[in-house]
C-alpha cells in the first residue's frame, strides 16, 4: 500500500471510529448523557465567567491561582502517571502489560485535554491564546517556565496521540506494527512523562518570592504522587473495562500496578515528612505557610481540614495497599486506589497551590475559598475529560481485540469495515 493512501485512509478511519463511538448500550448512553449534562453546566458557568470577569471566582490579588491551577497540576500528574505502565511493559518486558499500556496512553491523552482546559479557563483573555504561539505570537522561551510547560504538554499530547493512533490503525489494517514507528516514541513518552511533571513543578519552585514552593523537593514529590494517581486510576479503569467489554484483562497488570503503588505511597509520605521536618524544626518565616496549612494562623484555618483529610487519606491508602488481604480481595485494592486518588488530589491541589499564596508576599493572610462557579467549571472539565476517555477506550478496544478490522470491508475500498455483532455487545 502506498504511503500516500494512508493520508486519505487514516482520516477516514478516524471518522469511522468516531461515528462508531456514538453507538452503544443504554448504559453507555446514560453515562454519556450524565457527563454531557455536567459538562454543559460547566460550559454555562464558564460563559458567565468570561462575560462578567473572573471576579466570579474566589481568587484575589493575594491568591491569584486557585482551584483551576490546582486541578491542572493534579491533571498533569495523572497524565504522567498514566504511562507508567509503559515502564514494566517495555523496560522489563512484562508482556501482559503490553496489552494494557495503550489504555494508559489513552488516559494520558484525556488527562492532557483536561489540563489544557484548566489553563484556558484560568486565563483572563483566552481569545489571545495565539500570543503564545511560537512564530506569530511572542513566545518567551526559554526564559518563562510557562512556555516550557506549553511545549512539553503539547509535545506529550502529540507523542501519545501518535502511539495510540498508530497501534490502533495497524491493528485495524490487520498488520503487524513496525517497531521503528512506535518503540522510539514509547521510550520518548517515558522521559516526556517525567518532564511534564518536573516542568510543572519548576513553574512553582522557580519563584524565589514564594518560600512554600521554593523547594528542590517539589519536582520529586510531584513525580512520586504522579506514580500513585496514574496506577490507581488505571487499576480501577481496567476492571471497569473488563466488566463492560468482556475483554480478557488478566490479574498480572493489576498486581504490577499495585506493587508500584506500594512503593510510591510510602515515598510520597516520606517526602512530605521531610518537608515538614525542615519547616518545623527550623521554623522562622519560611514555616509560616506550612503552619498556616496544617494548624491555621491568626484565626485563619480554611485549609486545615483539607490537608488533614489529605494526610489521613494518604496514610489510610498506604495501610490498605499493604494489607496482605489486599492481594486477594480486589475491592480492598480499589478502596486503596480511591483513598490514594482523593488524598493526592487534595494534597497536590488545595494543599500545594493555595498555601503558596497564604500568607502573601507581604505576609497578609487573605484566605481563598472556591466559589460555586469554580466548582461548576471544574466538574464540567472533568466530565468532559471522562467523555474523551470513554470514547477513546470504547473505539480503541474493539479494534485491538480484532472485532473491527479493515478486512471486513470490500477489498480495495479502504477501511469501511462493518462492525461485527460482538462489537455491538462490547459497546
Amino acid at each position: 500500500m502506498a504511503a500516500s493512501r494512508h493520508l486519505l485512509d487514516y482520516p477516514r478511519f478516524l471518522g469511522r471510529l468516531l461515528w462508531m463511538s456514538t453507538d452503544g448500550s443504554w448504559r453507555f448512553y446514560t453515562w454519556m448523557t450524565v457527563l454531557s449534562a455536567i459538562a454543559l453546566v460547566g460550559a454555562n458557568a464558564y460563559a458567565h465567567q468570561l462575560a462578567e470577569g473572573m471576579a466570579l471566582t474566589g481568587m484575589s490579588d493575594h491568591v491569584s491561582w486557585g482551584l483551576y491551577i490546582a486541578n491542572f497540576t493534579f491533571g498533569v500528574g495523572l497524565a504522567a502517571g498514566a504511562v507508567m505502565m509503559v515502564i514494566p511493559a517495555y523496560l522489563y518486558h512484562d508482556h501482559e502489560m503490553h496489552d494494557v499500556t495503550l489504555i494508559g496512553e489513552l488516559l494520558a491523552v484525556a488527562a492532557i485535554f483536561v489540563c489544557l482546559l484548566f489553563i484556558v479557563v484560568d486565563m483572563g483573555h483566552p481569545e489571545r491564546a495565539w500570543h503564545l504561539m511560537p512564530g506569530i505570537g511572542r513566545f518567551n522561551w526559554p526564559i518563562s517556565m510557562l512556555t516550557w510547560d506549553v511545549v512539553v504538554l503539547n509535545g506529550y499530547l502529540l507523542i501519545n496521540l501518535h502511539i495510540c493512533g498508530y497501534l490502533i490503525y495497524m491493528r485495524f489494517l490487520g498488520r503487524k506494527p513496525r517497531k521503528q514507528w512506535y518503540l522510539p516514541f514509547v521510550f520518548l513518552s517515558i522521559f516526556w512523562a517525567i518532564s511534564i511533571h518536573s516542568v510543572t513543578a519548576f513553574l512553582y519552585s522557580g519563584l524565589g518570592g514564594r518560600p512554600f514552593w521554593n523547594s528542590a523537593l517539589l519536582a520529586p514529590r510531584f513525580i512520586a504522587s504522579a506514580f500513585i494517581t496514574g496506577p490507581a486510576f488505571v487499576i480501577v479503569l481496567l476492571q471497569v473495562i473488563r466488566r463492560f467489554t468482556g475483554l480478557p484483562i488478566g490479574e498480572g497488570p493489576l498486581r504490577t500496578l499495585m506493587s508500584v503503588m506500594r512503593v510510591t505511597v510510602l515515598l510520597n509520605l516520606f517526602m512530605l515528612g521531610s518537608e515538614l521536618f525542615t519547616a518545623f524544626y527550623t521554623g522562622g518565616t519560611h514555616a509560616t505557610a506550612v503552619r498556616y496549612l496544617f494548624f491555621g494562623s491568626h484565626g485563619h484555618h480554611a485549609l486545615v481540614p483539607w490537608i488533614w483529610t489529605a494526610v489521613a487519606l494518604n496514610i489510610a491508602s498506604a495501610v490498605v495497599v499493604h494489607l496482605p488481604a489486599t492481594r486477594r480481595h480486589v475491592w480492598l485494592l480499589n478502596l486503596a486506589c480511591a483513598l490514594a486518588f482523593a488524598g493526592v488530589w487534595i494534597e497536590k491541589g488545595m494543599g500545594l497551590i493555595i498555601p503558596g499564596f497564604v500568607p502573601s508576599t507581604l505576609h497578609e493572610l487573605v484566605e481563598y475559598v472556591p466559589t460555586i462557579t469554580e466548582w461548576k467549571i471544574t466538574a464540567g472539565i472533568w466530565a468532559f475529560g471522562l467523555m474523551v476517555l470513554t470514547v477513546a477506550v470504547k473505539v480503541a478496544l474493539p479494534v485491538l481485540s480484532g472485532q473491527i478490522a479493515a478486512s471486513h470491508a470490500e477489498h480495495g475500498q479502504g477501511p469501511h469495515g462493518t462492525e461485527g455483532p460482538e462489537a455491538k455487545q462490547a459497546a
Partner: protein
Amino acid sequence: MSDIVSRRTMMKGAGATLGAAAFAHAMAPLTEWSKDLSVDEFLQKHYKELTRDELGRVLLHLKEETKRKYGRDVDIQALPPQEGVSFAYALNLSICIGCRKCAEACHQENNHDRRTGNSYIRVLEMQQGSLDLEHGNANYDHPVPAEGKYYLPVQCHQCDNAPCVKVCPVQATWKEQDGIVVVDYNWCIGCRYCEAACPYHARRFNWAKPEIPPEEINPDQGYLSNRIRPQGVVEKCTFCLHRTRAGRLPACLEACPTGARVFGNLLDPKSPIRWVLENKRVFVLKEELGTRPRFFYFFDK
C-alpha cells in the same frame, strides 16, 4: 437490520440536535462578552511591534472606546522613554506617618476601580525595631502614627532583575529603557503568573471591568500606564510614566504631606535621588532574592 440502523441514526441525529441546542443555550452569556471584542483589537500586534501609524490608530480607537464605555473624553498618549534618563525612587521611613495619602492619590491618578478601592501602593504598619514583614499589618484602622510603630509603603520596585518579566509567557510585560516595568494591556493574556512571581505584591489583576464615574476619570492618560484597563489583564505601578516622562513627578510623591518621597533621574548627578543614595544609608526589601529593586528605603539616622 437496516431498520435498526436507520432508527439508530435518527436517534443520533435527534441527540446531536438536542446537544447542540443545549450547548448554544449554555454559552449564551458569551454574546455579552463578544460585544467588547473587536477584530482590530484581537489582531493587534505587540506594543513594541506597532509602527507609528498603527500606534496612532490604536490610541484613537482607545479614546473612542473610553468615550463609548465610560462617557468621557480623554487624551491617551504613548510617551517614549527619554534618552539619558533612568528613574529611581526613595522613601524616608523616619518621616512616613502612614497616612496613606499616597495610596489615595495613586487610586485617583491611575483610574483605579472605585468598587474595590484599588491602589498600587500598600502601606504596612510595622513594629518598631523589626523589619520582619510578618509583624506588619496593611489593614490598620486607627489614628496614625501609632505608638511603637513605623510605616512601610510598598509599591512596584521596578526590579532590574524582575521575576515578573522573566515568567511572563508572552512578553506582555517588560522593562523599558528608563527602568520602568510596563504591561501592554492589549497583549496580556491574563494568566497571572507574574502576580505569583512578584515578591512585593505589586501587581493587580482586573477581576472585573473597572467602574469609575465619568467625572472622576483622570483624562491625562498613557497607553502603558493609567488608561482604564480592560477586564482580565494585569496592571501595576509605572512611577506614573505619563507624568514623569513629561518631566513631572509621580502623583504619590506630590500627595505625600511629610516629604518622605524622593524621585528622580539616576543619571543626573544633581538630582535629589542621587543625593539620597550618596548621603543616606539606604536599603532595599528582600535583597536576598536578587531582584535588584530601584525603589530604596532609608532612615534619617
